[in-house]
């Protein structure tokens, strides 16, 4: 059997040419270009496997393309018409589980007791240091436990978070609250050591929570994802109409310049008691402007 397609570049070139041929006549959209590039890398890997199995370069490339099947069916399959079975949100309602509610109430009560002890210490002042430390730790532990427990629950809009990740969020909250407790003891005059001991866990918590936030993946249910997509489609006047976005930017600057200038002038003339109204007025104008410019009534 002769292999007519072996070019100078060998099999490495063949597969790219065959892919181009397969996509010839297909009207390219960004999604299809994306699909084509994805297919390309997979074909290269498949050709390498077939070549390692003893097939010659050109034959391996043709075999890989044949296995891929018809490009048009693949594109049709990858771009489904999309209308998903629509069940109304209230039909998907997930009620909180009774044991979760009970746990949260009990833990919150323990945390509230800790807060009460600290309030007593601040108001009356005859709570021993050990008591304040225990109260602070109780608040931190309960806050962390409630956080982790809540993230583990399935809600109407969210899937439950995996146990390790929820636990990591809980630990982050424990560290943050415990660190704040150290700061509290420093403010109460218990020495600089508490401040230093408080800053370290807060920094650790910031690091941990930032890491968790940065590596967070989707945990919304499908219907929430779709609803967000449709909402994004409604409110994107600024991407459709860049001139409106530019006008909005200018209006915003003008509004706040006037509001701040009014605030300064009123402070100097009338006094603090009334000058803040200028900022409120600025806020009101801003909100009306957002409503007016972002959500244009459809013709």
């Amino acid at each position, binding site marked *: 059997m002769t292999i007519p397609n072996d070019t100078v570049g060998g099999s*490495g070139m063949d597969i790219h040419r065959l892919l181009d041929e397969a996509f010839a006549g297909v009207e390219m959209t960004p999604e299809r270009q*994306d*699909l084509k*590039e*994805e*297919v*390309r*890398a*997979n*074909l*290269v*890997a*498949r050709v390498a*496997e077939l070549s390692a199995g003893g097939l010659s370069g050109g034959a391996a490339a043709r075999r890989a393309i044949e*296995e*891929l*099947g*018809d490009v048009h*069916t*693949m594109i049709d*399959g*990858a*771009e*489904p018409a*999309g209308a998903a079975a629509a069940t109304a949100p209230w039909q998907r309602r997930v009620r909180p589980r009774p044991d979760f509610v009970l746990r949260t109430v009990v833990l919150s009560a323990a945390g509230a007791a800790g807060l009460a002890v600290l309030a007593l210490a601040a108001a009356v002042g005859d709570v021993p240091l050990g008591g304040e430390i225990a109260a602070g730790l109780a608040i931190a532990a309960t806050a962390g436990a409630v956080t982790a427990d809540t993230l583990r629950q*399935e809600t109407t809009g*969210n*899937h*439950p*978070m*995996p146990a390790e*990740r929820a636990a990591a969020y809980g630990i982050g909250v424990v560290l943050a609250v415990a660190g704040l407790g150290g700061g509290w003891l420093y403010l109460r005059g218990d020495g600089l050591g508490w401040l230093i001991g408080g800053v370290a866990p807060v920094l650790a918590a910031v690091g941990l929570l930032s890491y968790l936030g940065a590596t*967070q*993946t*989707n*945990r*919304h*249910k*499908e219907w929430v*994802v*779709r609803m967000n997509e449709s909402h994004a489609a409604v409110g994107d006047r600024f991407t459709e109409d860049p001139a409106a976005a530019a006008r909005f930017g200018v209006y915003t600057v003008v509004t706040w310049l006037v509001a701040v200038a009014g605030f300064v002038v009123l402070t100097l003339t009338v006094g603090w008691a009334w000058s803040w109204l200028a900022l409120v007025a600025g806020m009101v104008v801003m909100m009306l402007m957002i409503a007016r410019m972002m959500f244009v009534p459809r013709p």
Partner: protein
Amino acid sequence: MVENIRDDSSSVDVLAADLLRGHTDTIVLAMLRRDDSYGFEIFKRIRDATGGRHEIKEATLYATYRRLMKDGLIEAYWGDESQGGRRKYYRITDAGRAVYRRNMAAWALTRDLIDSLLEADRSPGPHDPAPGR
């Protein structure tokens, strides 16, 4: 009898493939559970996991990735290969893990139910009707 079964093995294969097709989403989620992967590697993992007896068509897999991404169950990112085209890697999301766990539980239940229903006559239970009734 044994010969008959051997003759029917191809139709059994077709039936098994039909049953498997309904679980493509869950199978892909299972392949991504450990670590991120790209199209051909996922294809190979599925093929190898069945000992080469079954494979899911690549075209089916591309459609599956698109659907799972639309539902927020997986996320995609491009790798940084310089040779032979960049690979599109897929990563399972928390939502994907939750759906995977739910589907696994549903499958385990279904499997047990079908096992006990189809083998009901083989292992007579305590309510076996008395002979002659």
